[in-house]
Protein backbone atom coordinates (compact mmCIF):
# COMPACT_ATOMS: atom_id res chain seq x y z
CA UNK A 1 0.00 0.00 0.00
CA UNK A 2 1.27 3.49 -0.83
CA UNK A 3 -0.07 5.79 1.89
CA UNK A 4 1.08 9.11 0.33
CA UNK A 5 -0.99 8.74 -2.81
CA UNK A 6 -4.41 10.42 -3.08
CA UNK A 7 -7.32 7.99 -3.03
CA UNK A 8 -7.93 8.36 -6.77
CA UNK A 9 -4.33 7.29 -7.51
CA UNK A 10 -3.21 4.38 -5.46
CA UNK A 11 -1.51 1.05 -5.25
CA UNK A 12 -2.36 -1.63 -2.74
CA UNK A 13 0.11 -4.35 -1.88
CA UNK A 14 -1.28 -7.49 -0.31
CA UNK A 15 1.48 -9.84 0.68
CA UNK A 16 0.79 -13.24 2.13
CA UNK A 17 -2.98 -13.28 2.15
CA UNK A 18 -4.04 -15.31 5.13
CA UNK A 19 -6.24 -18.33 4.72
CA UNK A 20 -5.14 -18.73 1.09
CA UNK A 21 -2.94 -21.66 0.22
CA UNK A 22 0.44 -21.21 -1.41
CA UNK A 23 2.50 -18.26 -2.54
CA UNK A 24 1.85 -15.44 -4.94
CA UNK A 25 0.66 -11.87 -5.09
CA UNK A 26 -2.08 -9.66 -6.42
CA UNK A 27 -1.19 -6.26 -7.91
CA UNK A 28 -3.94 -3.70 -8.34
CA UNK A 29 -3.31 -0.33 -9.99
CA UNK A 30 -5.86 2.48 -9.77
CA UNK A 31 -5.36 5.66 -11.81
CA UNK A 32 -7.55 8.77 -11.61
CA UNK A 33 -10.04 6.88 -9.49
CA UNK A 34 -10.50 4.13 -12.08
CA UNK A 35 -9.19 0.60 -12.04
CA UNK A 36 -6.36 0.31 -14.52
CA UNK A 37 -5.02 -3.17 -13.96
CA UNK A 38 -5.42 -6.33 -11.89
CA UNK A 39 -2.75 -9.01 -12.07
CA UNK A 40 -2.31 -12.21 -10.18
CA UNK A 41 1.40 -12.90 -10.00
CA UNK A 42 2.24 -16.43 -9.10
CA UNK A 43 5.71 -17.37 -8.05
CA UNK A 44 5.51 -20.58 -6.11
CA UNK A 45 7.64 -23.06 -8.02
CA UNK A 46 5.70 -25.46 -10.23
CA UNK A 47 5.60 -28.92 -8.79
CA UNK A 48 6.27 -30.94 -11.91
CA UNK A 49 3.94 -33.75 -10.95
CA UNK A 50 3.09 -34.36 -14.59
CA UNK A 51 6.76 -34.89 -15.42
CA UNK A 52 7.26 -36.97 -12.31
CA UNK A 53 4.53 -39.37 -13.42
CA UNK A 54 6.18 -40.10 -16.76
CA UNK A 55 7.91 -43.46 -16.71
CA UNK A 56 6.02 -44.65 -13.64
CA UNK A 57 3.69 -47.64 -13.58
CA UNK A 58 0.02 -47.24 -14.51
CA UNK A 59 -1.09 -48.27 -11.00
CA UNK A 60 0.92 -45.53 -9.28
CA UNK A 61 -1.04 -42.31 -10.07
CA UNK A 62 -3.58 -42.72 -7.24
CA UNK A 63 -0.81 -42.67 -4.64
CA UNK A 64 1.46 -40.16 -6.36
CA UNK A 65 -1.22 -37.58 -7.22
CA UNK A 66 -2.79 -37.84 -3.76
CA UNK A 67 0.32 -36.07 -2.51
CA UNK A 68 -0.55 -32.94 -4.50
CA UNK A 69 -3.00 -31.87 -1.81
CA UNK A 70 -3.50 -32.72 1.86
CA UNK A 71 -7.09 -31.50 1.80
CA UNK A 72 -8.41 -33.21 -1.31
CA UNK A 73 -6.27 -36.35 -1.76
CA UNK A 74 -9.36 -38.45 -2.45
CA UNK A 75 -10.23 -36.22 -5.40
CA UNK A 76 -6.81 -36.90 -6.90
CA UNK A 77 -7.03 -40.61 -6.18
CA UNK A 78 -10.52 -41.01 -7.61
CA UNK A 79 -9.69 -39.00 -10.72
CA UNK A 80 -6.50 -40.94 -11.30
CA UNK A 81 -8.38 -44.21 -10.98
CA UNK A 82 -11.07 -43.00 -13.38
CA UNK A 83 -8.50 -41.97 -15.98
CA UNK A 84 -6.47 -45.18 -15.78
CA UNK A 85 -9.60 -47.35 -15.80
CA UNK A 86 -10.86 -45.40 -18.81
CA UNK A 87 -7.61 -46.09 -20.60
CA UNK A 88 -7.68 -49.79 -19.70
CA UNK A 89 -11.43 -50.15 -20.43
CA UNK A 90 -12.05 -51.49 -16.93
CA UNK A 91 -15.64 -51.89 -15.75
CA UNK A 92 -16.06 -51.01 -12.09
CA UNK A 93 -18.79 -52.88 -10.18
CA UNK A 94 -21.53 -50.80 -8.60
CA UNK A 95 -20.53 -51.86 -5.07
CA UNK A 96 -17.04 -50.41 -5.56
CA UNK A 97 -18.40 -47.23 -7.13
CA UNK A 98 -20.69 -46.72 -4.15
CA UNK A 99 -17.82 -47.19 -1.71
CA UNK A 100 -15.73 -44.68 -3.64
CA UNK A 101 -18.60 -42.21 -3.49
CA UNK A 102 -18.88 -42.76 0.26
CA UNK A 103 -15.18 -42.04 0.72
CA UNK A 104 -15.48 -38.93 -1.45
CA UNK A 105 -18.42 -37.71 0.69
CA UNK A 106 -16.05 -37.80 3.66
CA UNK A 107 -13.64 -35.52 1.84
CA UNK A 108 -16.42 -33.09 0.88
CA UNK A 109 -17.63 -32.95 4.49
CA UNK A 110 -14.24 -32.29 6.03
CA UNK A 111 -13.11 -29.89 3.33
CA UNK A 112 -16.34 -27.86 3.24
CA UNK A 113 -16.56 -27.77 7.06
CA UNK A 114 -13.00 -26.50 7.25
CA UNK A 115 -13.56 -23.83 4.63
CA UNK A 116 -16.99 -22.66 5.79
CA UNK A 117 -16.21 -22.45 9.50
CA UNK A 118 -12.52 -21.89 9.93
CA UNK A 119 -11.47 -20.09 6.76
CA UNK A 120 -14.40 -18.23 5.19
CA UNK A 121 -16.88 -17.43 7.97
CA UNK A 122 -14.41 -15.30 9.97
CA UNK A 123 -14.56 -12.74 7.12
CA UNK A 124 -18.26 -12.17 7.68
CA UNK A 125 -17.71 -11.36 11.35
CA UNK A 126 -14.67 -9.13 10.71
CA UNK A 127 -12.63 -11.67 12.61
CA UNK A 128 -8.98 -12.26 11.80
CA UNK A 129 -9.32 -16.01 12.12
CA UNK A 130 -11.24 -18.91 13.63
CA UNK A 131 -9.85 -18.13 17.08
CA UNK A 132 -11.53 -14.72 17.06
CA UNK A 133 -14.67 -16.26 15.59
CA UNK A 134 -14.75 -18.74 18.47
CA UNK A 135 -14.72 -15.79 20.86
CA UNK A 136 -17.73 -14.31 19.05
CA UNK A 137 -19.65 -17.52 18.36
CA UNK A 138 -18.16 -20.50 20.14
CA UNK A 139 -21.08 -22.77 19.32
CA UNK A 140 -20.62 -22.25 15.60
CA UNK A 141 -16.95 -23.17 15.65
CA UNK A 142 -17.72 -26.24 17.75
CA UNK A 143 -20.33 -27.25 15.19
CA UNK A 144 -17.79 -26.84 12.38
CA UNK A 145 -15.24 -28.95 14.20
CA UNK A 146 -17.83 -31.66 14.83
CA UNK A 147 -18.62 -31.76 11.12
CA UNK A 148 -14.97 -31.91 10.16
CA UNK A 149 -14.44 -34.74 12.60
CA UNK A 150 -17.21 -36.81 11.01
CA UNK A 151 -15.69 -36.21 7.57
CA UNK A 152 -12.33 -37.38 8.88
CA UNK A 153 -13.95 -40.42 10.50
CA UNK A 154 -15.50 -41.38 7.19
CA UNK A 155 -12.16 -41.06 5.40
CA UNK A 156 -10.37 -43.06 8.09
CA UNK A 157 -12.98 -45.81 8.03
CA UNK A 158 -13.02 -46.24 4.25
CA UNK A 159 -9.62 -44.91 3.25
CA UNK A 160 -7.49 -46.08 6.15
CA UNK A 161 -6.54 -42.57 7.25
CA UNK A 162 -7.87 -39.04 6.84
CA UNK A 163 -4.88 -37.50 5.09
CA UNK A 164 -3.61 -39.28 1.99
CA UNK A 165 -5.77 -42.41 2.37
CA UNK A 166 -3.93 -45.66 1.77
CA UNK A 167 -6.78 -48.02 0.87
CA UNK A 168 -7.43 -46.76 -2.68
CA UNK A 169 -6.08 -48.53 -5.74
CA UNK A 170 -6.88 -48.70 -9.42
CA UNK A 171 -9.79 -51.11 -9.77
CA UNK A 172 -11.15 -50.43 -6.28
CA UNK A 173 -9.78 -50.83 -2.77
CA UNK A 174 -7.06 -52.92 -1.15
CA UNK A 175 -9.54 -54.03 1.50
CA UNK A 176 -13.28 -53.63 1.88
CA UNK A 177 -14.29 -52.08 5.20
CA UNK A 178 -16.26 -54.47 7.40
CA UNK A 179 -20.00 -54.06 7.39
CA UNK A 180 -20.09 -53.15 11.08
CA UNK A 181 -17.57 -50.33 10.74
CA UNK A 182 -19.58 -48.73 7.94
CA UNK A 183 -22.93 -49.17 9.68
CA UNK A 184 -21.38 -47.55 12.77
CA UNK A 185 -21.03 -44.37 10.73
CA UNK A 186 -24.79 -43.91 10.59
CA UNK A 187 -25.24 -42.24 13.97
CA UNK A 188 -22.36 -39.77 13.56
CA UNK A 189 -23.68 -38.99 10.06
CA UNK A 190 -27.20 -38.31 11.37
CA UNK A 191 -25.75 -35.90 13.91
CA UNK A 192 -23.62 -34.33 11.18
CA UNK A 193 -26.69 -33.91 8.98
CA UNK A 194 -28.35 -31.88 11.72
CA UNK A 195 -25.21 -29.80 12.12
CA UNK A 196 -25.09 -29.27 8.36
CA UNK A 197 -28.70 -28.09 8.30
CA UNK A 198 -27.88 -25.63 11.09
CA UNK A 199 -24.89 -24.53 9.05
CA UNK A 200 -27.14 -23.50 6.17
CA UNK A 201 -29.36 -21.48 8.50
CA UNK A 202 -26.31 -19.85 10.05
CA UNK A 203 -24.52 -18.81 6.85
CA UNK A 204 -27.72 -17.73 5.12
CA UNK A 205 -28.05 -15.04 7.80
CA UNK A 206 -24.70 -13.44 6.93
CA UNK A 207 -24.59 -9.97 5.41
CA UNK A 208 -23.43 -10.40 1.81
CA UNK A 209 -22.12 -7.69 -0.53
CA UNK A 210 -24.62 -7.12 -3.32
CA UNK A 211 -22.51 -8.36 -6.21
CA UNK A 212 -23.58 -10.52 -9.13
CA UNK A 213 -21.00 -12.20 -11.33
CA UNK A 214 -21.33 -13.31 -14.92
CA UNK A 215 -20.07 -16.84 -15.05
CA UNK A 216 -19.73 -19.64 -17.52
CA UNK A 217 -20.35 -22.53 -15.14
CA UNK A 218 -18.73 -25.88 -15.83
CA UNK A 219 -19.28 -29.03 -13.82
CA UNK A 220 -19.90 -32.73 -14.03
CA UNK A 221 -23.50 -33.74 -14.56
CA UNK A 222 -25.01 -37.14 -13.96
CA UNK A 223 -28.54 -38.22 -14.86
CA UNK A 224 -29.14 -39.96 -11.52
CA UNK A 225 -27.44 -37.91 -8.85
CA UNK A 226 -25.62 -34.77 -7.80
CA UNK A 227 -22.15 -35.28 -9.30
CA UNK A 228 -19.13 -36.32 -7.29
CA UNK A 229 -17.10 -39.16 -8.74
CA UNK A 230 -18.47 -39.56 -12.25
CA UNK A 231 -20.45 -37.98 -15.04
CA UNK A 232 -20.18 -35.99 -18.23
CA UNK A 233 -19.01 -32.39 -18.31
CA UNK A 234 -21.59 -29.71 -18.98
CA UNK A 235 -21.53 -25.94 -19.09
CA UNK A 236 -24.12 -23.26 -18.55
CA UNK A 237 -23.80 -22.34 -22.24
CA UNK A 238 -24.62 -25.76 -23.57
CA UNK A 239 -21.50 -27.92 -23.60
CA UNK A 240 -22.07 -31.62 -22.99
CA UNK A 241 -18.80 -33.52 -23.30
CA UNK A 242 -16.93 -36.55 -22.08
CA UNK A 243 -13.88 -35.81 -19.91
CA UNK A 244 -11.64 -36.64 -22.88
CA UNK A 245 -13.51 -34.26 -25.17
CA UNK A 246 -13.44 -31.50 -22.57
CA UNK A 247 -9.70 -31.93 -21.99
CA UNK A 248 -9.20 -31.51 -25.73
CA UNK A 249 -11.23 -28.31 -25.73
CA UNK A 250 -9.43 -26.60 -22.86
CA UNK A 251 -6.40 -24.54 -23.73
CA UNK A 252 -3.89 -24.03 -20.96
CA UNK A 253 -1.60 -21.04 -21.35
CA UNK A 254 1.49 -19.98 -19.53
CA UNK A 255 1.76 -16.27 -18.71
CA UNK A 256 4.95 -14.61 -17.54
CA UNK A 257 3.61 -13.55 -14.15
CA UNK A 258 2.53 -17.02 -13.15
CA UNK A 259 4.09 -20.41 -12.72
CA UNK A 260 0.63 -21.94 -13.10
CA UNK A 261 -1.11 -22.63 -16.36
CA UNK A 262 -4.27 -20.62 -16.99
CA UNK A 263 -7.18 -22.48 -18.54
CA UNK A 264 -9.70 -21.27 -21.11
CA UNK A 265 -12.25 -23.15 -23.15
CA UNK A 266 -11.23 -22.85 -26.77
CA UNK A 267 -13.48 -20.32 -28.47
CA UNK A 268 -15.41 -19.54 -25.27
CA UNK A 269 -12.85 -18.07 -22.90
CA UNK A 270 -12.90 -18.31 -19.10
CA UNK A 271 -15.10 -20.48 -16.92
CA UNK A 272 -15.82 -21.32 -13.31
CA UNK A 273 -15.92 -24.71 -11.64
CA UNK A 274 -16.82 -25.49 -8.03
CA UNK A 275 -19.88 -25.26 -5.78
CA UNK A 276 -21.58 -22.40 -7.67
CA UNK A 277 -21.21 -24.29 -10.94
CA UNK A 278 -22.25 -27.66 -9.53
CA UNK A 279 -25.30 -26.12 -7.94
CA UNK A 280 -26.34 -24.19 -11.06
CA UNK A 281 -26.13 -27.28 -13.26
CA UNK A 282 -27.35 -29.92 -10.81
CA UNK A 283 -29.53 -28.41 -8.09
CA UNK A 284 -32.56 -30.46 -9.10
CA UNK A 285 -30.59 -33.63 -8.30
CA UNK A 286 -29.72 -32.63 -4.73
CA UNK A 287 -30.92 -34.95 -1.98
CA UNK A 288 -34.31 -33.99 -0.47
CA UNK A 289 -33.06 -32.27 2.70
CA UNK A 290 -30.37 -30.42 0.77
CA UNK A 291 -32.89 -29.23 -1.79
CA UNK A 292 -35.18 -28.05 0.98
CA UNK A 293 -32.30 -26.28 2.75
CA UNK A 294 -31.33 -24.51 -0.47
CA UNK A 295 -34.88 -23.31 -0.98
CA UNK A 296 -35.16 -22.09 2.62
CA UNK A 297 -31.86 -20.23 2.24
CA UNK A 298 -33.28 -18.52 -0.84
CA UNK A 299 -30.72 -19.80 -3.30
CA UNK A 300 -33.10 -20.24 -6.22
CA UNK A 301 -32.08 -22.21 -9.28
CA UNK A 302 -28.62 -20.68 -9.44
CA UNK A 303 -26.46 -18.42 -7.37
CA UNK A 304 -24.24 -15.84 -9.09
CA UNK A 305 -23.23 -13.82 -6.06
CA UNK A 306 -19.75 -15.23 -5.34
CA UNK A 307 -19.92 -14.09 -1.72
CA UNK A 308 -22.87 -16.43 -1.22
CA UNK A 309 -20.77 -19.40 -2.28
CA UNK A 310 -20.53 -20.15 1.44
CA UNK A 311 -24.29 -20.84 1.42
CA UNK A 312 -23.91 -23.21 -1.52
CA UNK A 313 -21.07 -25.00 0.28
CA UNK A 314 -23.30 -25.37 3.33
CA UNK A 315 -26.04 -26.87 1.15
CA UNK A 316 -23.46 -29.26 -0.27
CA UNK A 317 -22.54 -30.21 3.29
CA UNK A 318 -26.16 -31.24 3.84
CA UNK A 319 -26.07 -33.17 0.59
CA UNK A 320 -22.81 -34.95 1.43
CA UNK A 321 -24.06 -35.98 4.88
CA UNK A 322 -27.38 -37.19 3.50
CA UNK A 323 -25.74 -39.05 0.65
CA UNK A 324 -23.11 -40.63 2.91
CA UNK A 325 -25.83 -41.78 5.28
CA UNK A 326 -27.74 -43.38 2.42
CA UNK A 327 -24.61 -45.14 1.18
CA UNK A 328 -23.58 -46.29 4.67
CA UNK A 329 -27.02 -47.70 5.41
CA UNK A 330 -27.09 -49.56 2.12
CA UNK A 331 -23.48 -50.74 2.27
CA UNK A 332 -22.61 -54.18 0.95
CA UNK A 333 -18.99 -55.29 1.14
CA UNK A 334 -17.62 -55.43 -2.41
CA UNK A 335 -16.27 -58.89 -3.08
CA UNK A 336 -13.57 -58.82 -4.29
CA UNK A 337 -12.67 -55.30 -3.11
CA UNK A 338 -11.03 -54.51 -6.43
CA UNK A 339 -11.14 -55.72 -9.99
CA UNK A 340 -8.08 -56.47 -12.05
CA UNK A 341 -6.92 -53.62 -14.25
CA UNK A 342 -4.91 -54.88 -17.21
CA UNK A 343 -2.67 -52.36 -18.96
CA UNK A 344 -3.86 -51.40 -22.40
CA UNK A 345 -1.91 -49.01 -24.59
CA UNK A 346 -3.74 -45.78 -25.25
CA UNK A 347 -5.03 -42.66 -23.59
CA UNK A 348 -7.59 -42.37 -20.80
CA UNK A 349 -9.26 -39.40 -19.15
CA UNK A 350 -11.07 -39.05 -15.86
CA UNK A 351 -12.96 -36.22 -14.20
CA UNK A 352 -14.43 -35.89 -10.73
CA UNK A 353 -15.72 -33.06 -8.55
CA UNK A 354 -13.14 -32.09 -5.95
CA UNK A 355 -14.66 -30.00 -3.15
CA UNK A 356 -13.47 -26.83 -4.86
CA UNK A 357 -14.23 -27.83 -8.44
CA UNK A 358 -13.71 -29.98 -11.46
CA UNK A 359 -10.53 -32.03 -11.51
CA UNK A 360 -9.31 -33.72 -14.68
CA UNK A 361 -6.50 -36.14 -15.31
CA UNK A 362 -5.37 -37.76 -18.52
CA UNK A 363 -2.77 -40.47 -18.99
CA UNK A 364 -1.17 -42.11 -21.98
CA UNK A 365 0.31 -45.55 -21.27
CA UNK A 366 2.11 -48.17 -23.32
CA UNK A 367 1.42 -51.91 -23.52
CA UNK A 368 3.49 -52.59 -20.36
CA UNK A 369 1.52 -49.99 -18.45
CA UNK A 370 4.30 -47.42 -18.32
CA UNK A 371 3.00 -43.86 -18.26
CA UNK A 372 4.12 -41.97 -21.35
CA UNK A 373 2.43 -38.68 -20.56
CA UNK A 374 0.24 -37.21 -17.86
CA UNK A 375 -1.95 -34.13 -17.69
CA UNK A 376 -3.51 -32.79 -14.50
CA UNK A 377 -6.01 -29.92 -14.52
CA UNK A 378 -6.83 -28.91 -10.94
CA UNK A 379 -9.84 -26.69 -10.24
CA UNK A 380 -7.83 -23.68 -9.13
CA UNK A 381 -5.97 -23.51 -12.45
CA UNK A 382 -9.28 -23.57 -14.23
CA UNK A 383 -10.78 -20.91 -11.96
CA UNK A 384 -7.85 -18.56 -11.82
CA UNK A 385 -8.87 -16.22 -14.64
CA UNK A 386 -12.42 -16.07 -13.32
CA UNK A 387 -11.11 -15.19 -9.87
CA UNK A 388 -9.20 -12.35 -11.54
CA UNK A 389 -12.43 -11.18 -13.22
CA UNK A 390 -14.21 -11.32 -9.86
CA UNK A 391 -11.50 -9.19 -8.34
CA UNK A 392 -11.84 -6.63 -11.13
CA UNK A 393 -15.58 -6.37 -10.45
CA UNK A 394 -15.13 -6.23 -6.68
CA UNK A 395 -12.51 -3.48 -6.95
CA UNK A 396 -14.61 -1.42 -9.35
CA UNK A 397 -17.61 -1.71 -7.03
CA UNK A 398 -15.54 -0.86 -3.97
CA UNK A 399 -13.14 1.68 -5.44
CA UNK A 400 -14.29 4.35 -2.97
CA UNK A 401 -13.23 2.18 -0.04
CA UNK A 402 -9.98 2.98 1.68
CA UNK A 403 -7.06 0.70 0.99
CA UNK A 404 -7.48 -1.45 4.09
CA UNK A 405 -11.16 -2.07 3.40
CA UNK A 406 -10.52 -2.71 -0.29
CA UNK A 407 -7.72 -5.13 0.52
CA UNK A 408 -10.01 -7.00 2.90
CA UNK A 409 -12.72 -7.13 0.23
CA UNK A 410 -10.20 -8.54 -2.29
CA UNK A 411 -9.11 -11.21 0.15
CA UNK A 412 -12.69 -12.20 0.75
CA UNK A 413 -13.34 -12.31 -3.01
CA UNK A 414 -10.46 -14.72 -3.39
CA UNK A 415 -11.57 -16.91 -0.51
CA UNK A 416 -15.05 -17.10 -2.07
CA UNK A 417 -13.56 -19.67 -4.41
CA UNK A 418 -11.50 -21.53 -1.81
CA UNK A 419 -8.49 -21.64 -4.10
CA UNK A 420 -6.06 -24.43 -3.43
CA UNK A 421 -2.73 -23.17 -4.62
CA UNK A 422 -0.91 -26.31 -3.63
CA UNK A 423 -3.04 -28.10 -6.19
CA UNK A 424 -2.51 -25.48 -8.86
CA UNK A 425 1.13 -24.88 -7.99
CA UNK A 426 0.66 -21.21 -7.33
CA UNK A 427 -0.45 -18.03 -5.48
CA UNK A 428 -0.88 -15.04 -3.39
CA UNK A 429 0.20 -11.62 -2.05
CA UNK A 430 -1.78 -8.53 -3.04
CA UNK A 431 -0.59 -5.12 -4.22
CA UNK A 432 -3.01 -2.29 -5.01
CA UNK A 433 -1.44 0.72 -6.73
CA UNK A 434 -3.23 4.04 -7.14
CA UNK A 435 -1.12 6.22 -9.41
Amino acid at each position, binding site marked *: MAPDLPIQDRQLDMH*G*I*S*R*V*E*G*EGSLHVRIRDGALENVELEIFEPPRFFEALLRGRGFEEPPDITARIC*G*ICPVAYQMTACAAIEDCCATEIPESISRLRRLLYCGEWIQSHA*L*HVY*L*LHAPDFFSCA*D*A*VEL*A*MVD*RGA*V*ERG*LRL*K*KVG*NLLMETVGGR*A*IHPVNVRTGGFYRAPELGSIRALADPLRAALNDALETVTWVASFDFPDVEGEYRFVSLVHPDHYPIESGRIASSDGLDLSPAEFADLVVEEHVARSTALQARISGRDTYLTGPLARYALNQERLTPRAKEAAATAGLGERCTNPFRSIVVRAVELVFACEEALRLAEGYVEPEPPSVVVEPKPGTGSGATEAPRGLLLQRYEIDEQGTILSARIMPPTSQNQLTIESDLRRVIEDGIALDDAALTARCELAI*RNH*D*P*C*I*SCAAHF*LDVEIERS
Partner: protein
Amino acid sequence: MNHRVVVAGLGNDYRGDDGAGPAVARLVAASTGAVDIGPIAEPLDLLGKWDGACVAVLVDAMRTGAPPGTVCVVDIETESSRQTTSTHAIGLGRVVRLASVLGTGPRRVVVLGVEGADFADGQGLSDAVVRAVPRAAATAAELLFAAGLQS
Protein backbone atom coordinates in the same frame (compact mmCIF):
# COMPACT_ATOMS: atom_id res chain seq x y z
CA MET B 1 -10.14 -39.42 25.49
CA ASN B 2 -9.46 -38.24 29.01
CA HIS B 3 -5.82 -38.93 29.80
CA ARG B 4 -4.22 -36.56 32.22
CA VAL B 5 -0.87 -36.45 30.49
CA VAL B 6 -0.50 -36.77 26.74
CA VAL B 7 2.35 -36.51 24.29
CA ALA B 8 2.12 -36.09 20.54
CA GLY B 9 4.66 -36.05 17.78
CA LEU B 10 3.80 -33.83 14.85
CA GLY B 11 5.21 -34.99 11.57
CA ASN B 12 5.54 -37.69 9.01
CA ASP B 13 7.70 -40.78 9.53
CA TYR B 14 8.06 -41.06 5.76
CA ARG B 15 9.70 -37.68 5.30
CA GLY B 16 13.11 -38.14 6.89
CA ASP B 17 13.67 -35.86 9.87
CA ASP B 18 10.02 -34.80 9.84
CA GLY B 19 9.62 -38.03 11.80
CA ALA B 20 11.59 -36.58 14.72
CA GLY B 21 8.44 -35.57 16.62
CA PRO B 22 6.76 -38.99 16.44
CA ALA B 23 10.07 -40.72 17.33
CA VAL B 24 10.51 -38.59 20.44
CA ALA B 25 6.85 -38.99 21.42
CA ARG B 26 7.09 -42.78 21.24
CA LEU B 27 10.10 -42.73 23.52
CA VAL B 28 8.45 -40.34 25.97
CA ALA B 29 5.33 -42.50 26.11
CA ALA B 30 7.39 -45.63 26.73
CA SER B 31 9.48 -44.05 29.46
CA THR B 32 6.89 -41.95 31.31
CA GLY B 33 3.52 -43.59 30.79
CA ALA B 34 2.17 -40.50 29.05
CA VAL B 35 -0.36 -41.42 26.38
CA ASP B 36 0.89 -40.95 22.84
CA ILE B 37 -1.98 -39.43 20.84
CA GLY B 38 0.06 -38.98 17.65
CA PRO B 39 1.45 -38.99 15.17
CA ILE B 40 -0.32 -35.80 14.17
CA ALA B 41 -0.15 -34.77 10.53
CA GLU B 42 -2.19 -31.59 10.85
CA PRO B 43 -2.40 -29.54 14.08
CA LEU B 44 -6.20 -29.32 13.84
CA ASP B 45 -6.27 -33.07 14.45
CA LEU B 46 -5.20 -32.40 18.03
CA LEU B 47 -8.69 -31.10 18.73
CA GLY B 48 -10.67 -33.94 20.20
CA LYS B 49 -7.63 -36.11 20.82
CA TRP B 50 -6.28 -34.13 23.73
CA ASP B 51 -9.59 -33.07 25.26
CA GLY B 52 -9.59 -33.36 29.02
CA ALA B 53 -5.82 -33.67 29.29
CA CYS B 54 -4.09 -31.83 32.05
CA VAL B 55 -0.76 -31.52 30.29
CA ALA B 56 0.28 -32.04 26.68
CA VAL B 57 3.80 -32.10 25.35
CA LEU B 58 4.00 -31.66 21.60
CA VAL B 59 7.16 -32.46 19.70
CA ASP B 60 7.78 -31.25 16.18
CA ALA B 61 10.68 -31.08 13.78
CA MET B 62 11.85 -27.58 12.98
CA ARG B 63 14.06 -25.84 10.47
CA THR B 64 15.51 -22.67 11.92
CA GLY B 65 19.11 -22.77 10.74
CA ALA B 66 20.36 -24.10 14.07
CA PRO B 67 22.73 -27.09 13.99
CA PRO B 68 20.81 -30.31 13.18
CA GLY B 69 19.81 -32.12 16.35
CA THR B 70 19.34 -28.91 18.35
CA VAL B 71 16.52 -29.34 20.86
CA CYS B 72 14.63 -26.32 22.14
CA VAL B 73 11.41 -25.35 23.85
CA VAL B 74 9.23 -23.35 21.46
CA ASP B 75 7.39 -20.28 22.67
CA ILE B 76 3.85 -21.10 21.59
CA GLU B 77 2.69 -17.50 22.09
CA THR B 78 5.17 -16.29 19.48
CA GLU B 79 4.24 -19.10 17.14
CA SER B 80 0.53 -18.37 17.48
CA SER B 81 0.90 -14.75 16.43
CA ARG B 82 2.81 -15.60 13.28
CA GLN B 83 0.97 -14.88 10.03
CA THR B 84 0.16 -17.98 8.06
CA THR B 85 -0.34 -18.14 4.32
CA SER B 86 -2.47 -21.16 3.87
CA THR B 87 -6.09 -21.65 3.00
CA HIS B 88 -6.11 -25.07 4.43
CA ALA B 89 -3.66 -25.40 7.25
CA ILE B 90 -4.09 -23.82 10.64
CA GLY B 91 -0.85 -23.51 12.53
CA LEU B 92 -0.11 -25.16 15.83
CA GLY B 93 -0.18 -21.90 17.76
CA ARG B 94 -3.63 -21.03 16.50
CA VAL B 95 -4.90 -24.50 17.25
CA VAL B 96 -3.65 -24.16 20.82
CA ARG B 97 -5.38 -20.77 21.10
CA LEU B 98 -8.55 -22.14 19.51
CA ALA B 99 -8.66 -25.03 21.98
CA SER B 100 -8.13 -22.58 24.78
CA VAL B 101 -11.03 -20.38 23.63
CA LEU B 102 -13.26 -23.43 23.23
CA GLY B 103 -12.20 -24.64 26.66
CA THR B 104 -11.35 -28.10 25.37
CA GLY B 105 -7.57 -28.11 25.30
CA PRO B 106 -5.11 -29.22 27.96
CA ARG B 107 -4.50 -26.82 30.79
CA ARG B 108 -0.84 -26.67 29.85
CA VAL B 109 0.77 -27.17 26.47
CA VAL B 110 4.51 -27.44 26.07
CA VAL B 111 6.08 -27.53 22.62
CA LEU B 112 9.48 -28.98 21.93
CA GLY B 113 11.35 -28.55 18.65
CA VAL B 114 14.04 -30.73 17.16
CA GLU B 115 16.12 -29.19 14.39
CA GLY B 116 16.09 -31.45 11.32
CA ALA B 117 18.59 -31.73 8.50
CA ASP B 118 16.95 -33.78 5.79
CA PHE B 119 13.21 -33.77 5.00
CA ALA B 120 13.36 -35.75 1.77
CA ASP B 121 10.98 -38.63 1.04
CA GLY B 122 11.78 -41.86 2.79
CA GLN B 123 12.05 -43.37 6.24
CA GLY B 124 14.89 -42.81 8.67
CA LEU B 125 16.27 -39.92 10.65
CA SER B 126 19.60 -38.27 9.97
CA ASP B 127 22.46 -39.12 12.34
CA ALA B 128 22.25 -35.83 14.21
CA VAL B 129 18.54 -36.27 14.82
CA VAL B 130 18.93 -39.91 15.86
CA ARG B 131 21.37 -38.71 18.52
CA ALA B 132 18.97 -35.93 19.53
CA VAL B 133 15.93 -38.18 20.08
CA PRO B 134 16.85 -39.53 23.58
CA ARG B 135 17.99 -36.05 24.62
CA ALA B 136 14.71 -34.54 23.42
CA ALA B 137 12.76 -37.31 25.14
CA ALA B 138 14.55 -36.61 28.42
CA THR B 139 13.79 -32.91 28.07
CA ALA B 140 10.16 -33.71 27.27
CA ALA B 141 9.92 -35.94 30.34
CA GLU B 142 11.31 -33.15 32.51
CA LEU B 143 8.83 -30.68 31.00
CA LEU B 144 5.98 -33.10 31.56
CA PHE B 145 6.99 -33.53 35.16
CA ALA B 146 7.39 -29.80 35.76
CA ALA B 147 4.15 -28.93 33.97
CA GLY B 148 2.32 -31.65 35.86
CA LEU B 149 3.51 -30.24 39.15
CA GLN B 150 2.32 -26.76 38.21
CA SER B 151 -1.06 -27.76 36.85
